[in-house]
């Protein structure tokens, strides 16, 4: 079980790395390497999408192969992340809509927020059940 978990974590790390690299490649490549070539950009985006799907499938396997407590911890962390992202995202959107704030949030802000919320929830839940 431990060996399988290690294997899955390694696979997840590799797929995540591949996904991040293809994000970087697509963004950097479109402006510095193949400027204006739509076909290459489309190929890079498809590559990124493929890596993203691979990452999701491995993560799904990892969760399905986890034991009951690990699943509970994951579920709570994902629930908190989803809930907070929805609420905070909508609050920021409303603040922007009503002109109470004068800055526009990027998608990267949302991803960073989700990542940090998930990380904090995982740490908190793991400490709770330690």
């Amino acid at each position: 079980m431990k060996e399988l978990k290690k294997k899955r974590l390694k696979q997840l790390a590799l797929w995540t790395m591949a996904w991040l690299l293809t994000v970087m490649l697509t963004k950097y490549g479109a402006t510095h390497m193949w400027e204006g070539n739509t076909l290459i950009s489309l190929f890079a985006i498809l590559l990124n999408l493929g890596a993203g799907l691979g990452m999701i499938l491995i993560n799904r396997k990892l969760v399905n192969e986890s034991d009951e407590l690990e699943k509970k911890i994951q579920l709570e962390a994902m629930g908190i992340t989803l809930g907070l992202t929805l609420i905070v995202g909508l609050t920021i959107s409303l603040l922007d809509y009503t002109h109470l704030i004068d800055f526009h949030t990027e998608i990267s802000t949302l991803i960073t927020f989700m990542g940090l919320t998930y990380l904090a929830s995982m740490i908190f839940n793991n400490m709770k059940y330690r």
Partner: protein
Amino acid sequence: MKNKLKVLRAERNLTQEELADIIGVSRQTINAIEKEKFDPSLPTAFRMSKLFNLPIEEIFTFDEPQN
């Protein structure tokens, strides 16, 4: 839910890690069950019952929450 897992494990000289390997869960799960922070699933409870050769209700006691 209260349980006698720690006592039963100690009687058989098993570490949390060893018990976790036999039952097929993580050491963290065994620890959380022993500290009564987490209730095991029915399959896990049955595996424990089989391992300790005791009925489930002798390992786990259900405490009705008081209103």
